[in-house]
Protein backbone atom coordinates (compact mmCIF):
# COMPACT_ATOMS: atom_id res chain seq x y z
CA UNK A 1 0.00 0.00 0.00
CA UNK A 2 1.37 3.28 -1.01
CA UNK A 3 2.06 6.05 1.37
CA UNK A 4 4.67 8.73 1.45
CA UNK A 5 6.43 8.28 4.80
CA UNK A 6 6.60 12.05 5.02
CA UNK A 7 2.87 12.31 5.46
CA UNK A 8 2.35 9.46 7.88
CA UNK A 9 1.69 10.21 11.48
CA UNK A 10 2.15 13.68 12.86
CA UNK A 11 2.53 16.35 10.21
CA UNK A 12 4.53 19.40 11.16
CA UNK A 13 5.04 22.64 9.30
CA UNK A 14 8.28 21.42 7.91
CA UNK A 15 6.49 18.52 6.31
CA UNK A 16 4.06 20.88 4.72
CA UNK A 17 6.92 23.00 3.52
CA UNK A 18 8.55 19.99 1.92
CA UNK A 19 5.31 19.16 0.23
CA UNK A 20 4.95 22.65 -1.12
CA UNK A 21 8.48 22.59 -2.40
CA UNK A 22 7.89 19.27 -4.13
CA UNK A 23 4.72 20.52 -5.70
CA UNK A 24 6.22 23.75 -6.92
CA UNK A 25 9.25 22.01 -8.31
CA UNK A 26 7.08 19.48 -10.05
CA UNK A 27 4.89 22.19 -11.48
CA UNK A 28 7.85 24.12 -12.79
CA UNK A 29 9.38 20.96 -14.17
CA UNK A 30 6.19 20.17 -16.00
CA UNK A 31 5.98 23.58 -17.57
CA UNK A 32 9.58 23.47 -18.67
CA UNK A 33 9.26 19.97 -19.97
CA UNK A 34 6.29 20.99 -22.06
CA UNK A 35 8.28 23.78 -23.61
CA UNK A 36 11.04 21.38 -24.32
CA UNK A 37 8.72 18.71 -25.54
CA UNK A 38 7.15 20.96 -28.12
CA UNK A 39 10.52 22.01 -29.28
CA UNK A 40 11.71 18.42 -29.50
CA UNK A 41 8.66 17.39 -31.40
CA UNK A 42 8.97 20.15 -33.90
CA UNK A 43 12.63 19.59 -34.35
CA UNK A 44 12.43 15.84 -34.69
CA UNK A 45 9.58 16.01 -37.12
CA UNK A 46 11.21 18.60 -39.22
CA UNK A 47 14.35 16.52 -39.30
CA UNK A 48 12.36 13.55 -40.43
CA UNK A 49 10.70 15.64 -43.07
CA UNK A 50 13.92 17.22 -44.23
CA UNK A 51 13.05 20.59 -42.84
CA UNK A 52 14.90 22.74 -40.38
CA UNK A 53 12.17 23.50 -37.90
CA UNK A 54 12.22 26.32 -35.39
CA UNK A 55 15.56 28.02 -35.23
CA UNK A 56 15.00 31.69 -34.47
CA UNK A 57 14.08 32.10 -30.84
CA UNK A 58 16.98 31.16 -28.61
CA UNK A 59 19.70 28.67 -29.36
CA UNK A 60 18.45 26.04 -31.85
CA UNK A 61 15.03 27.65 -31.54
CA UNK A 62 14.78 26.35 -27.97
CA UNK A 63 12.64 29.27 -26.85
CA UNK A 64 10.24 29.03 -29.75
CA UNK A 65 7.50 27.49 -27.67
CA UNK A 66 7.86 30.13 -25.01
CA UNK A 67 7.59 32.78 -27.66
CA UNK A 68 4.48 31.17 -29.07
CA UNK A 69 2.96 31.05 -25.60
CA UNK A 70 3.67 34.67 -24.91
CA UNK A 71 2.28 35.64 -28.26
CA UNK A 72 -0.99 33.98 -27.45
CA UNK A 73 -1.39 36.16 -24.39
CA UNK A 74 -1.65 39.14 -26.68
CA UNK A 75 -4.32 37.69 -28.94
CA UNK A 76 -7.96 38.54 -28.73
CA UNK A 77 -10.06 36.16 -26.67
CA UNK A 78 -13.17 35.32 -28.70
CA UNK A 79 -16.29 33.72 -27.36
CA UNK A 80 -18.72 32.66 -30.08
CA UNK A 81 -22.19 34.13 -29.82
CA UNK A 82 -23.97 30.80 -29.83
CA UNK A 83 -21.82 29.31 -27.15
CA UNK A 84 -22.77 28.39 -23.65
CA UNK A 85 -20.48 30.94 -22.01
CA UNK A 86 -20.05 29.35 -18.64
CA UNK A 87 -19.19 25.93 -19.96
CA UNK A 88 -17.11 27.42 -22.71
CA UNK A 89 -14.94 29.03 -20.06
CA UNK A 90 -15.00 26.00 -17.78
CA UNK A 91 -13.83 23.46 -20.34
CA UNK A 92 -10.14 24.47 -20.48
CA UNK A 93 -9.86 23.94 -16.76
CA UNK A 94 -11.30 20.48 -17.09
CA UNK A 95 -8.61 19.69 -19.58
CA UNK A 96 -5.72 21.36 -17.86
CA UNK A 97 -6.12 20.48 -14.22
CA UNK A 98 -6.38 16.71 -14.71
CA UNK A 99 -3.28 16.89 -16.83
CA UNK A 100 -1.41 18.45 -13.95
CA UNK A 101 -2.79 16.11 -11.35
CA UNK A 102 -2.08 12.91 -13.20
CA UNK A 103 1.59 13.59 -12.97
CA UNK A 104 1.53 13.62 -9.19
CA UNK A 105 1.47 9.85 -8.93
CA UNK A 106 4.54 9.26 -11.05
CA UNK A 107 7.56 8.08 -9.02
CA UNK A 108 10.49 10.06 -10.27
CA UNK A 109 13.16 8.68 -8.02
CA UNK A 110 13.80 6.70 -4.91
CA UNK A 111 13.36 7.61 -1.30
CA UNK A 112 15.44 10.51 -0.04
CA UNK A 113 15.96 12.50 3.11
CA UNK A 114 15.03 16.14 2.96
CA UNK A 115 15.67 18.28 6.04
CA UNK A 116 15.82 15.14 8.07
CA UNK A 117 12.51 13.84 6.83
CA UNK A 118 12.26 10.78 4.68
CA UNK A 119 10.22 11.30 1.59
CA UNK A 120 9.62 9.67 -1.74
CA UNK A 121 10.67 11.42 -4.86
CA UNK A 122 7.20 11.72 -6.24
CA UNK A 123 4.66 14.39 -5.63
CA UNK A 124 2.09 12.18 -3.94
CA UNK A 125 1.73 8.52 -3.23
CA UNK A 126 -1.86 7.85 -2.30
CA UNK A 127 -2.81 4.23 -1.68
CA UNK A 128 -5.15 4.24 -4.65
CA UNK A 129 -2.48 5.77 -6.88
CA UNK A 130 -3.27 4.40 -10.29
CA UNK A 131 -6.99 5.01 -9.87
CA UNK A 132 -6.17 8.70 -9.90
CA UNK A 133 -4.95 8.22 -13.44
CA UNK A 134 -8.23 6.64 -14.45
CA UNK A 135 -10.22 9.31 -12.67
CA UNK A 136 -8.30 12.12 -14.25
CA UNK A 137 -8.50 10.68 -17.71
CA UNK A 138 -12.24 10.41 -17.25
CA UNK A 139 -12.49 14.03 -16.22
CA UNK A 140 -10.43 15.17 -19.15
CA UNK A 141 -13.06 13.56 -21.39
CA UNK A 142 -15.43 16.12 -19.99
CA UNK A 143 -13.05 18.90 -20.87
CA UNK A 144 -12.95 17.83 -24.48
CA UNK A 145 -16.62 17.03 -24.73
CA UNK A 146 -17.88 20.19 -23.10
CA UNK A 147 -15.48 22.34 -25.07
CA UNK A 148 -16.91 21.05 -28.29
CA UNK A 149 -20.48 21.10 -27.18
CA UNK A 150 -20.41 24.57 -25.66
CA UNK A 151 -18.92 26.15 -28.75
CA UNK A 152 -22.25 26.06 -30.54
CA UNK A 153 -20.60 25.25 -33.80
CA UNK A 154 -20.63 22.15 -35.91
CA UNK A 155 -16.98 21.23 -36.26
CA UNK A 156 -16.21 21.42 -32.59
CA UNK A 157 -19.29 19.36 -31.87
CA UNK A 158 -18.33 16.59 -34.23
CA UNK A 159 -14.82 16.76 -32.95
CA UNK A 160 -15.86 16.47 -29.38
CA UNK A 161 -18.25 13.64 -30.08
CA UNK A 162 -15.55 11.76 -31.82
CA UNK A 163 -13.07 12.57 -29.14
CA UNK A 164 -15.19 11.47 -26.29
CA UNK A 165 -16.27 8.30 -28.06
CA UNK A 166 -12.69 7.54 -28.81
CA UNK A 167 -11.44 8.36 -25.36
CA UNK A 168 -13.96 6.27 -23.52
CA UNK A 169 -13.47 3.42 -25.94
CA UNK A 170 -9.79 3.28 -25.31
CA UNK A 171 -10.17 3.97 -21.65
CA UNK A 172 -11.62 0.51 -21.24
CA UNK A 173 -8.64 -1.13 -22.90
CA UNK A 174 -6.30 1.03 -20.91
CA UNK A 175 -8.01 0.14 -17.67
CA UNK A 176 -7.82 -3.55 -18.44
CA UNK A 177 -4.15 -3.46 -19.22
CA UNK A 178 -3.45 -1.50 -16.05
CA UNK A 179 -5.45 -4.10 -14.17
CA UNK A 180 -2.89 -6.67 -15.25
CA UNK A 181 -0.18 -4.56 -13.66
CA UNK A 182 -2.25 -4.22 -10.51
CA UNK A 183 -2.69 -7.95 -10.50
CA UNK A 184 1.01 -8.69 -10.34
CA UNK A 185 1.67 -5.84 -7.95
CA UNK A 186 -1.14 -6.58 -5.56
CA UNK A 187 -1.51 -2.89 -4.89
CA UNK A 188 -2.84 0.22 -6.53
CA UNK A 189 0.02 2.41 -5.44
CA UNK A 190 2.44 3.44 -8.15
CA UNK A 191 5.30 3.30 -5.70
CA UNK A 192 4.50 -0.33 -5.01
CA UNK A 193 4.42 -0.98 -8.70
CA UNK A 194 7.87 0.42 -9.05
CA UNK A 195 9.32 -1.46 -6.10
CA UNK A 196 7.66 -4.61 -7.35
CA UNK A 197 9.72 -4.38 -10.53
CA UNK A 198 13.10 -4.21 -8.80
CA UNK A 199 15.49 -7.05 -9.37
CA UNK A 200 16.36 -9.15 -12.36
CA UNK A 201 15.84 -12.53 -13.88
CA UNK A 202 19.03 -14.50 -14.26
CA UNK A 203 20.96 -11.46 -13.18
CA UNK A 204 20.56 -9.45 -16.36
CA UNK A 205 16.98 -9.44 -17.57
CA UNK A 206 15.21 -6.69 -15.65
CA UNK A 207 12.26 -7.81 -13.61
CA UNK A 208 10.02 -5.33 -15.32
CA UNK A 209 6.34 -5.71 -15.83
CA UNK A 210 6.98 -5.57 -19.51
CA UNK A 211 8.47 -9.00 -19.23
CA UNK A 212 6.52 -10.31 -16.29
CA UNK A 213 3.27 -9.64 -18.07
CA UNK A 214 4.38 -10.87 -21.42
CA UNK A 215 4.53 -7.65 -23.43
CA UNK A 216 0.90 -7.76 -24.51
CA UNK A 217 -0.46 -5.45 -21.82
CA UNK A 218 2.28 -3.01 -22.68
CA UNK A 219 1.38 -3.02 -26.35
CA UNK A 220 -2.23 -2.52 -25.54
CA UNK A 221 -1.40 0.21 -23.11
CA UNK A 222 0.75 2.18 -25.48
CA UNK A 223 -1.86 2.00 -28.20
CA UNK A 224 -4.60 2.90 -25.78
CA UNK A 225 -2.94 5.92 -24.30
CA UNK A 226 -1.92 7.18 -27.68
CA UNK A 227 -5.56 7.24 -28.52
CA UNK A 228 -6.41 8.51 -25.08
CA UNK A 229 -4.34 11.65 -25.50
CA UNK A 230 -5.46 12.01 -29.11
CA UNK A 231 -1.99 11.75 -30.49
CA UNK A 232 -1.40 10.67 -34.04
CA UNK A 233 -2.18 8.28 -35.55
CA UNK A 234 -5.32 8.50 -33.45
CA UNK A 235 -5.86 12.24 -33.70
CA UNK A 236 -9.13 12.15 -35.54
CA UNK A 237 -10.41 14.54 -32.99
CA UNK A 238 -8.62 17.37 -34.62
CA UNK A 239 -8.37 16.00 -38.10
CA UNK A 240 -7.72 19.27 -39.88
CA UNK A 241 -8.91 18.10 -43.24
CA UNK A 242 -12.37 17.31 -41.94
CA UNK A 243 -12.87 19.15 -38.74
CA UNK A 244 -10.60 22.18 -38.84
CA UNK A 245 -9.28 22.18 -35.29
CA UNK A 246 -11.68 19.70 -33.79
CA UNK A 247 -13.13 20.43 -30.42
CA UNK A 248 -11.09 23.59 -29.89
CA UNK A 249 -11.85 25.19 -33.22
CA UNK A 250 -13.64 28.09 -31.58
CA UNK A 251 -11.02 28.62 -28.92
CA UNK A 252 -8.52 31.36 -29.34
CA UNK A 253 -5.86 33.17 -27.42
CA UNK A 254 -4.78 31.70 -24.10
CA UNK A 255 -7.72 29.39 -23.92
CA UNK A 256 -6.42 27.59 -26.91
CA UNK A 257 -2.95 27.61 -25.41
CA UNK A 258 -4.23 25.84 -22.32
CA UNK A 259 -5.70 23.03 -24.38
CA UNK A 260 -2.43 22.77 -26.18
CA UNK A 261 -0.57 22.77 -22.93
CA UNK A 262 -2.83 20.07 -21.54
CA UNK A 263 -2.26 17.90 -24.55
CA UNK A 264 1.50 18.00 -24.20
CA UNK A 265 1.33 17.61 -20.47
CA UNK A 266 -0.73 14.49 -21.00
CA UNK A 267 1.68 13.12 -23.52
CA UNK A 268 4.59 13.55 -21.19
CA UNK A 269 2.70 12.20 -18.23
CA UNK A 270 1.57 9.17 -20.14
CA UNK A 271 5.13 8.46 -21.17
CA UNK A 272 6.09 8.64 -17.54
CA UNK A 273 3.21 6.41 -16.53
CA UNK A 274 4.22 3.89 -19.10
CA UNK A 275 7.69 3.85 -17.70
CA UNK A 276 6.26 3.44 -14.24
CA UNK A 277 3.94 0.63 -15.12
CA UNK A 278 6.05 -1.44 -17.45
CA UNK A 279 9.66 -0.31 -17.36
CA UNK A 280 10.49 -0.24 -13.71
CA UNK A 281 10.13 3.51 -13.32
CA UNK A 282 13.33 4.86 -11.86
CA UNK A 283 14.83 1.40 -11.81
CA UNK A 284 18.15 0.97 -13.49
CA UNK A 285 21.80 0.21 -12.94
CA UNK A 286 23.10 2.04 -9.90
CA UNK A 287 26.83 2.91 -10.04
CA UNK A 288 26.82 3.63 -6.27
CA UNK A 289 27.75 7.29 -6.57
CA UNK A 290 25.18 10.00 -6.08
CA UNK A 291 22.79 7.40 -4.92
CA UNK A 292 19.73 9.58 -5.17
CA UNK A 293 20.44 10.90 -8.62
CA UNK A 294 20.59 7.79 -10.74
CA UNK A 295 16.97 6.78 -10.43
CA UNK A 296 15.98 10.21 -11.60
CA UNK A 297 18.30 9.97 -14.52
CA UNK A 298 16.99 6.59 -15.54
CA UNK A 299 13.49 7.81 -15.22
CA UNK A 300 14.12 10.85 -17.36
CA UNK A 301 15.90 8.83 -19.98
CA UNK A 302 13.15 6.27 -20.26
CA UNK A 303 10.45 8.89 -20.35
CA UNK A 304 12.23 10.86 -23.00
CA UNK A 305 12.58 7.76 -25.13
CA UNK A 306 8.88 7.22 -25.02
CA UNK A 307 8.17 10.78 -25.81
CA UNK A 308 10.35 10.54 -28.85
CA UNK A 309 8.56 7.36 -29.81
CA UNK A 310 5.34 9.35 -29.80
CA UNK A 311 6.89 11.92 -32.02
CA UNK A 312 8.11 9.19 -34.25
CA UNK A 313 4.59 7.75 -34.45
CA UNK A 314 3.38 11.10 -35.53
CA UNK A 315 5.92 11.43 -38.21
CA UNK A 316 5.72 7.90 -39.46
CA UNK A 317 2.15 6.70 -39.25
CA UNK A 318 -0.84 7.80 -41.28
CA UNK A 319 -3.97 8.73 -39.46
CA UNK A 320 -6.53 5.95 -39.04
CA UNK A 321 -10.00 6.10 -40.43
CA UNK A 322 -12.62 6.53 -37.75
CA UNK A 323 -14.15 3.10 -38.13
CA UNK A 324 -10.71 1.50 -38.09
CA UNK A 325 -9.97 3.34 -34.92
CA UNK A 326 -13.09 2.19 -33.17
CA UNK A 327 -12.81 -1.34 -34.47
CA UNK A 328 -9.27 -1.55 -33.22
CA UNK A 329 -10.32 -0.37 -29.80
CA UNK A 330 -13.43 -2.43 -29.33
CA UNK A 331 -12.83 -5.56 -31.29
CA UNK A 332 -9.15 -6.07 -30.71
CA UNK A 333 -7.75 -4.27 -27.73
CA UNK A 334 -10.55 -4.80 -25.24
CA UNK A 335 -11.05 -8.53 -25.83
CA UNK A 336 -7.35 -9.22 -25.97
CA UNK A 337 -6.62 -7.29 -22.82
CA UNK A 338 -9.44 -8.99 -20.97
CA UNK A 339 -8.28 -12.39 -22.08
CA UNK A 340 -4.72 -11.65 -21.20
CA UNK A 341 -5.67 -10.40 -17.78
CA UNK A 342 -7.41 -13.68 -17.06
CA UNK A 343 -4.48 -15.68 -18.31
CA UNK A 344 -2.10 -13.73 -16.10
CA UNK A 345 -4.39 -14.22 -13.14
CA UNK A 346 -4.66 -17.92 -13.90
CA UNK A 347 -0.95 -18.32 -14.30
CA UNK A 348 -0.38 -16.73 -10.95
CA UNK A 349 -2.78 -19.12 -9.29
CA UNK A 350 -1.47 -22.20 -11.03
CA UNK A 351 0.17 -23.00 -14.32
CA UNK A 352 -2.55 -25.44 -15.26
CA UNK A 353 -5.30 -22.99 -14.64
CA UNK A 354 -3.46 -20.45 -16.71
CA UNK A 355 -3.21 -22.73 -19.67
CA UNK A 356 -6.79 -23.80 -19.32
CA UNK A 357 -7.80 -20.18 -19.38
CA UNK A 358 -5.58 -19.56 -22.34
CA UNK A 359 -7.25 -22.34 -24.27
CA UNK A 360 -10.66 -21.14 -23.25
CA UNK A 361 -9.62 -17.69 -24.26
CA UNK A 362 -8.61 -18.88 -27.69
CA UNK A 363 -11.96 -20.56 -28.05
CA UNK A 364 -13.58 -17.32 -26.98
CA UNK A 365 -11.51 -15.51 -29.55
CA UNK A 366 -12.85 -17.88 -32.16
CA UNK A 367 -16.37 -17.19 -30.99
CA UNK A 368 -15.73 -13.50 -31.13
CA UNK A 369 -14.34 -13.70 -34.63
CA UNK A 370 -17.40 -15.58 -35.67
CA UNK A 371 -19.57 -12.95 -34.01
CA UNK A 372 -17.73 -10.20 -35.83
CA UNK A 373 -18.21 -12.03 -39.06
CA UNK A 374 -21.87 -12.52 -38.28
CA UNK A 375 -22.20 -8.85 -37.56
CA UNK A 376 -20.66 -8.00 -40.87
CA UNK A 377 -22.88 -10.39 -42.78
CA UNK A 378 -26.01 -9.25 -41.07
CA UNK A 379 -25.21 -5.75 -42.11
CA UNK A 380 -25.54 -6.95 -45.62
CA UNK A 381 -29.03 -8.13 -44.84
CA UNK A 382 -30.45 -5.43 -42.73
CA UNK A 383 -29.46 -2.08 -41.45
CA UNK A 384 -27.77 -1.60 -38.10
CA UNK A 385 -29.91 -0.73 -35.19
CA UNK A 386 -28.75 2.80 -34.82
CA UNK A 387 -27.52 5.46 -37.17
CA UNK A 388 -23.95 6.34 -37.81
CA UNK A 389 -21.76 8.60 -35.85
CA UNK A 390 -20.19 9.93 -38.95
CA UNK A 391 -23.42 10.58 -40.64
CA UNK A 392 -23.53 14.08 -41.98
CA UNK A 393 -27.26 14.25 -41.50
CA UNK A 394 -26.67 15.14 -37.90
CA UNK A 395 -25.87 18.55 -39.25
CA UNK A 396 -29.40 18.93 -40.45
CA UNK A 397 -31.34 22.14 -40.18
CA UNK A 398 -33.77 21.22 -37.48
CA UNK A 399 -33.22 21.93 -33.83
CA UNK A 400 -34.77 18.61 -32.96
CA UNK A 401 -32.43 15.96 -31.73
CA UNK A 402 -30.07 14.46 -34.17
CA UNK A 403 -31.48 11.06 -33.49
CA UNK A 404 -34.84 12.06 -34.84
CA UNK A 405 -33.14 13.43 -37.84
CA UNK A 406 -31.38 10.16 -38.26
CA UNK A 407 -34.66 8.43 -38.53
CA UNK A 408 -35.17 9.88 -41.97
CA UNK A 409 -33.31 7.06 -43.59
CA UNK A 410 -35.69 4.37 -44.61
CA UNK A 411 -33.56 1.47 -43.59
CA UNK A 412 -33.54 2.42 -39.94
CA UNK A 413 -37.19 3.13 -39.90
CA UNK A 414 -37.79 -0.20 -41.46
CA UNK A 415 -35.76 -2.00 -38.93
CA UNK A 416 -37.02 -0.34 -35.87
CA UNK A 417 -40.16 1.52 -36.43
CA UNK A 418 -41.61 1.01 -39.78
CA UNK A 419 -42.96 -2.47 -39.53
CA UNK A 420 -46.52 -1.67 -38.68
Amino acid sequence: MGADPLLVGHIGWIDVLIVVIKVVVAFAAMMVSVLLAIWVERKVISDMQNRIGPNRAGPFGLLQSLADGIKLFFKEDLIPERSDRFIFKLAPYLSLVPAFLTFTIVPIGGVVDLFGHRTELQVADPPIGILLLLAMSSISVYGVMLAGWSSGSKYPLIGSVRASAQMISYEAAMGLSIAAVVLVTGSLSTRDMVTGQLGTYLGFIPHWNLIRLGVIPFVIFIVAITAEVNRPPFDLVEAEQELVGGFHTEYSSIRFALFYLAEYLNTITMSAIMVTLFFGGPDGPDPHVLHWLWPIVWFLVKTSIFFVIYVWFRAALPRLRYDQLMDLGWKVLIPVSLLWLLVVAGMRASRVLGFVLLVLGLIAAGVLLRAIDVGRRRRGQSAPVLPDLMDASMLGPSPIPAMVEEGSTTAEEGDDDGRA
Partner: protein
Amino acid sequence: MIPVSWYLIVGALLFGLGAFGVLIRRNVLVMFMSIELMLNAVNLTFVSYARALNDVGGEVAVFFVLVVAAAEVVVGLGIIVALFRRRASVTIDDIARLKG
Protein backbone atom coordinates in the same frame (compact mmCIF):
# COMPACT_ATOMS: atom_id res chain seq x y z
CA MET B 1 -12.95 16.58 12.09
CA ILE B 2 -16.40 16.91 10.61
CA PRO B 3 -18.85 14.75 12.52
CA VAL B 4 -20.47 11.94 10.62
CA SER B 5 -23.93 13.30 11.18
CA TRP B 6 -23.14 16.19 8.87
CA TYR B 7 -22.49 13.83 6.04
CA LEU B 8 -25.72 12.10 6.84
CA ILE B 9 -27.58 15.36 6.73
CA VAL B 10 -26.01 16.25 3.43
CA GLY B 11 -26.97 12.82 2.17
CA ALA B 12 -30.53 13.31 3.30
CA LEU B 13 -30.68 16.74 1.70
CA LEU B 14 -29.35 15.46 -1.57
CA PHE B 15 -31.77 12.59 -1.47
CA GLY B 16 -34.64 14.94 -0.80
CA LEU B 17 -33.48 17.19 -3.59
CA GLY B 18 -33.38 14.26 -5.96
CA ALA B 19 -36.78 13.01 -4.91
CA PHE B 20 -38.18 16.49 -5.26
CA GLY B 21 -36.65 16.72 -8.68
CA VAL B 22 -38.23 13.50 -9.84
CA LEU B 23 -41.59 14.58 -8.57
CA ILE B 24 -41.77 18.13 -9.83
CA ARG B 25 -39.53 18.36 -12.85
CA ARG B 26 -41.12 17.61 -16.17
CA ASN B 27 -38.06 17.12 -18.29
CA VAL B 28 -37.42 13.43 -18.57
CA LEU B 29 -33.68 13.79 -18.62
CA VAL B 30 -33.74 15.94 -15.53
CA MET B 31 -35.93 13.40 -13.80
CA PHE B 32 -33.49 10.76 -14.81
CA MET B 33 -30.62 12.72 -13.40
CA SER B 34 -32.55 13.32 -10.21
CA ILE B 35 -32.82 9.59 -9.73
CA GLU B 36 -29.10 9.32 -10.13
CA LEU B 37 -28.72 12.05 -7.57
CA MET B 38 -30.84 10.08 -5.17
CA LEU B 39 -28.70 7.01 -5.67
CA ASN B 40 -25.56 8.98 -5.02
CA ALA B 41 -27.06 10.49 -1.92
CA VAL B 42 -27.60 6.95 -0.75
CA ASN B 43 -23.99 6.19 -1.50
CA LEU B 44 -22.93 9.08 0.64
CA THR B 45 -25.14 7.82 3.43
CA PHE B 46 -23.74 4.33 3.14
CA VAL B 47 -20.19 5.54 3.29
CA SER B 48 -20.90 7.78 6.24
CA TYR B 49 -22.47 4.97 8.16
CA ALA B 50 -19.65 2.67 7.22
CA ARG B 51 -17.32 5.22 8.70
CA ALA B 52 -19.38 5.67 11.82
CA LEU B 53 -19.84 1.96 12.34
CA ASN B 54 -16.28 1.18 11.33
CA ASP B 55 -17.64 -1.51 9.07
CA VAL B 56 -16.58 -2.13 5.53
CA GLY B 57 -20.03 -3.39 4.55
CA GLY B 58 -21.33 0.06 3.77
CA GLU B 59 -18.49 0.78 1.44
CA VAL B 60 -19.00 -2.46 -0.37
CA ALA B 61 -22.63 -1.51 -0.74
CA VAL B 62 -21.54 1.53 -2.71
CA PHE B 63 -19.95 -0.71 -5.29
CA PHE B 64 -23.17 -2.52 -5.89
CA VAL B 65 -25.14 0.67 -6.00
CA LEU B 66 -22.75 2.08 -8.55
CA VAL B 67 -23.15 -0.94 -10.73
CA VAL B 68 -26.87 -0.84 -10.50
CA ALA B 69 -26.89 2.86 -11.22
CA ALA B 70 -24.77 2.26 -14.28
CA ALA B 71 -27.10 -0.43 -15.52
CA GLU B 72 -30.01 1.87 -14.94
CA VAL B 73 -28.30 4.62 -16.85
CA VAL B 74 -27.77 2.34 -19.79
CA VAL B 75 -31.30 1.09 -19.90
CA GLY B 76 -32.79 4.46 -19.13
CA LEU B 77 -30.87 6.17 -21.88
CA GLY B 78 -31.81 3.39 -24.23
CA ILE B 79 -35.46 3.86 -23.50
CA ILE B 80 -35.32 7.61 -23.70
CA VAL B 81 -33.45 7.53 -26.97
CA ALA B 82 -35.84 4.97 -28.39
CA LEU B 83 -38.82 7.05 -27.35
CA PHE B 84 -37.50 10.34 -28.62
CA ARG B 85 -36.50 9.05 -31.96
CA ARG B 86 -40.19 9.46 -32.65
CA ARG B 87 -40.87 12.55 -30.62
CA ALA B 88 -38.99 15.75 -30.46
CA SER B 89 -39.94 16.55 -26.92
CA VAL B 90 -38.31 15.53 -23.70
CA THR B 91 -41.14 16.76 -21.55
CA ILE B 92 -43.16 14.24 -19.66
CA ASP B 93 -46.38 16.15 -20.27
CA ASP B 94 -46.07 15.40 -23.94
CA ILE B 95 -45.85 11.71 -23.20
CA ALA B 96 -49.37 11.16 -22.19
CA ARG B 97 -50.99 8.77 -24.54
CA LEU B 98 -51.58 6.40 -21.70
CA LYS B 99 -54.32 7.51 -19.43
CA GLY B 100 -57.53 6.19 -18.12
